[in-house]
C-alpha cells in the first residue's frame, strides 16, 4: 500500500512511519509547516522555526523513506488561528487542535492523497481504526491514558476508510520501546502539550499580540446584575475560569457566562456553572447514521465521559456538568467505540 505518513517529529508518528515501513508498505513522510511565528512574521525572517521537522527528517532518513515539508501556513492561519481569535472574541472556547485536524491535516492531506500518489494517510494518533463488516469503526486507543479518539471524533467513513492509525494498537510505553529498539532518535522525546502557535505562553498573551483589536473593554457583573468592575476584553475569559478575574469578592467566583453582544463577563458561584445540556452544531456520525438515545459524552480532550441522552442536535446530561462553553467539542461514545462528535453551540441550565 502506498502510505503518506504525517510526521510531526514526535515519537508516535515516528513509530507509525516505522511500523508501516516494516509491514512492507511504500511509505512517504511529510511534515506540515503550519505556523511561522507568533505574529506571522515574513517568511524571510521568521520561517523555518520548525525544529521538530528536523527530527522527522532524520527519522525518515533512518527509515530510508522520502520526506517532504508541506507548507500549509496560509490554511492554518485562516482555518485555525483566525478562527481561534474569532471564537475567543465571540465568547466561545475553541479547541484549535481539533480545528487543525478538521480543516488542515485531514482535509488537506486526504484531499491531496491521490496527488501525493498515496492510498492512505497514516498518523500517530492513539486511537484504533478498525474495519468490521465492511465499515470503519473508530475506537479509543489501546492506551486509555493517551487516548486521542476525542480529537478524531469528527471523522466519518469517507475519511476513516483512507486513514490508518498503527500506534493506536500500542501503549505509549510500547511505542517508546519500539522506537528504542529501532534506534529512532525520537524514542525519549518528551510530549509537547502546548498549542503549537501559542507555545508555552498563556493563550491570552498570544491573543494580545496577535489580535489586540479583539480586546474590547466591557463590564464584569455578578449573576444578579450587580456591576463588579470592568475588564479589557472578553477574549481574556473562558467559562469556568476562576483565576485572574481582576476582582476580589471574598468568596470563590467563576466566569459563568460571557455575553459577546455587550462584552459582558458574568461572574457567579460554582453552582452557577452547572449545565444540564447543550445544543450541538457541525454534528458528524462516525458510521454515517445519526444516533439517538443513551451515549457516553466526553467534552474535554482528557476528560472522563459522562452519561447523557442524545436527541436530534441536543444532548442532555444525566447529571449536571460544570463549565461547558460554546465552541467546545463533544465526542459521543458507546464503550470504547466513537459514535460521533459535534461542537457546542449553546448551553442549557
Amino acid at each position, binding site marked *: 500500500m502506498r502510505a503518506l505518513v504525517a510526521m510531526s517529529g514526535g515519537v508516535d508518528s515516528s513509530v507509525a512511519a516505522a511500523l508501516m515501513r516494516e509491514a512492507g508498505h511504500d511509505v512517504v513522510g511529510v*511534515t506540515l509547516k503550519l505556523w511561522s511565528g507568533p505574529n506571522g512574521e515574513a*517568511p*524571510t*525572517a521568521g520561517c*523555518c522555526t*520548525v525544529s521538530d521537522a528536523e527530527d522527522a527528517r532524520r527519522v525518515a532518513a533512518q527509515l530510508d523513506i522520502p*520526506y*517532504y515539508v*508541506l507548507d500549509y501556513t496560509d490554511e492554518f492561519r485562516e482555518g485555525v488561528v483566525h478562527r481561534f481569535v474569532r471564537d475567543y472574541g465571540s465568547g466561545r472556547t475553541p479547541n484549535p487542535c481539533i480545528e487543525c485536524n478538521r480543516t488542515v491535516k485531514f482535509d488537506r492531506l486526504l484531499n491531496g492523497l491521490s496527488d*501525493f500518489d498515496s492510498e492512505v494517510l497514516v498518523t500517530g494518533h492513539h486511537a484504533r481504526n478498525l474495519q468490521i463488516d465492511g465499515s470503519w469503526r473508530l475506537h479509543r486507543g489501546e492506551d486509555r491514558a493517551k487516548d486521542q479518539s476525542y480529537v478524531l471524533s469528527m471523522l466519518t467513513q469517507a475519511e476513516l476508510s483512507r486513514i490508518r492509525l498503527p500506534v493506536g494498537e500500542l501503549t505509549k510505553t510500547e511505542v517508546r520501546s519500539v522506537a528504542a529498539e529501532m534506534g529512532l532518535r525520537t524514542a525519549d522525546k518528551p510530549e509537547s502539550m502546548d498549542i503549537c502557535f501559542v507555545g508555552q505562553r498563556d493563550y491570552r498573551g498570544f491573543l494580545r499580540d496577535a489580535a489586540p483589536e479583539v480586546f474590547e473593554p466591557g463590564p464584569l457583573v455578578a449573576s444578579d446584575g450587580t456591576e463588579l468592575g470592568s475588564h479589557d476584553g472578553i477574549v481574556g475569559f473562558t467559562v469556568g475560569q476562576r483565576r485572574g478575574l481582576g476582582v476580589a469578592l471574598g468568596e470563590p467566583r467563576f466566569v459563568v457566562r460571557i455575553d459577546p453582544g455587550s462584552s459582558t463577563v458574568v461572574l457567579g458561584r460554582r453552582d452557577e456553572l452547572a449545565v444540564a445540556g447543550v445544543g450541538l452544531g457541525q454534528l458528524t456520525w462516525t458510521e454515517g447514521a445519526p444516533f439517538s438515545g443513551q451515549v457516553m459524552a466526553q467534552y474535554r480532550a482528557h476528560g472522563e465521559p459522562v452519561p447523557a441522552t442524545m436527541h436530534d442536535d441536543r444532548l442532555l446530561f444525566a447529571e449536571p456538568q460544570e463549565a461547558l462553553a460554546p465552541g467546545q467539542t463533544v465526542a459521543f461514545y458507546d464503550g470504547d467505540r466513537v459514535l460521533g462528535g459535534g461542537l457546542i453551540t449553546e448551553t442549557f441550565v
Partner: protein
Amino acid sequence: MIYLDHAATTPVRPGVWEAMRPYADDVFGNSSGVHEVSRRAKNALEEAREKIAVAIGAGPREIVFTSGGTESDNLAIKGASLSSVPRRGVVTVATEHEAVLEATDFLRRLGVPTSVVGVDRHGQVDLPSLVDVVDANTAVVSVMHLNNETGVIQDIAGITSAIEEHEPDVLVHSDAVQAFSSAEIDVDDLGVDLLTITAHKFGGPKGAGLLYVREGTALEPVLHGGGQELGRRSGTHDVAGAVGLATAMEAAISDRSRFRSQVGQIRDDFEKRVLAAIPDAVVNTPETARSSHHLNVRFPGVRNETLLMRLDRAGVAASAGSACQSGASEVSHVLEAMGLSLGEARESVRFSFGWNSTADEAMDAATIVIDLIEELR
C-alpha cells in the same frame, strides 16, 4: 536521477576535486605559517588568486576569498555601508537574493537609510527609478546580474554608468553568482566596484567564493580577526577551496560558449516540449533578457509543492524558488515582486540546467513533467 536544479548547486567539474585534494592532504599547511608546508599552501593560494583575477579582469589584490555568495554579499553591503566613508545608505532591488535583502534590512534596523526598488512584470528594474533613489547619502547600490529564480538578466553595465554619472562616489555591487557559467564577466566592462562569485554554481566546491573589491574601495570587514585578505576577511584560508574555485572558473570560462549554445538548446527544447503539451503553461520570464539555463514556469491549477514532490519520486530534481531551512518551499519573493499573485507563485516551478545536462535526460524529464501535470489536473 535527472538533475534540473543547477541554480541551487552543481556537481564539481572533472579535475576540480583532484586539484583540491592535495591541500586537504599533503599540503595541509596554514597559509599564514612560516614553515614549508605552509609556504606551499600559501603559494597555491596566491596562484589561485592570480588565476581568478585574470579570469574576471581584475588584479590579485582585488580578490577577497570568502565562504561563498552569502558571505560575499554581506561583506559587500555591510562592508561598504559601515566603512569609514560618511555615506551609509544602501539601495537595492526587490528581486535580489536573501543575502542582499537581509543584509540591507539589518542595516535598516541599525538606522541606515535603505531603499528597495521594485521591478516590472518582466523582472527588470527601471533604471530611472533606481537612479532616482540614489543620493548623497548612498554608500552602495546592489543589483543582481542574473536572477537565481527566474534567470532574468539586468543590464549591469548600463546601471553602473548611469549611477556613475548621477553620483560618482556611490559603489556598485553585483551578485554574479548565477551569471558566471554563461555570461562574460569582466569587472571593468561591467563597471562594478564589488562583485560576488561562488564556486558551486559552476562546477566548483561549496564553501568557496570571492568578493571582488575594486582597488581603493573602503570596506569594513564583517569577520574580524587575524587580518587575512588584507584585513578584509579574517580566518584561516581554505586553500583547497580557493584552488577548487580557480580550477572551476577556468573550466567554466573555456566551456562558456559551448554552455550557452548547448545547454541553452537543451533548455529551449525542454521548454518547447513542455509548452507544446501543456499550452496553458506560462513562462514567467520573457525570452529577451533571460539566461540560457533557467526556466521558471507556471502550471495553472497545480501546486508547485505537490509537483516537486511527485517529480522527486519520479526521479527528477527541480525546485521552486529558494528552499528554507525546514525544507518547505517558500513563496517566491522574486515572483511576487514581478506582480504574480500568491497563488500564481505557488504554481511556479524552476528548472535549471547546467554543465553536465544532456539533451536525452531533459527530454525524459519533459515527458515526466507532462505526464504528472496531466495527472495532477
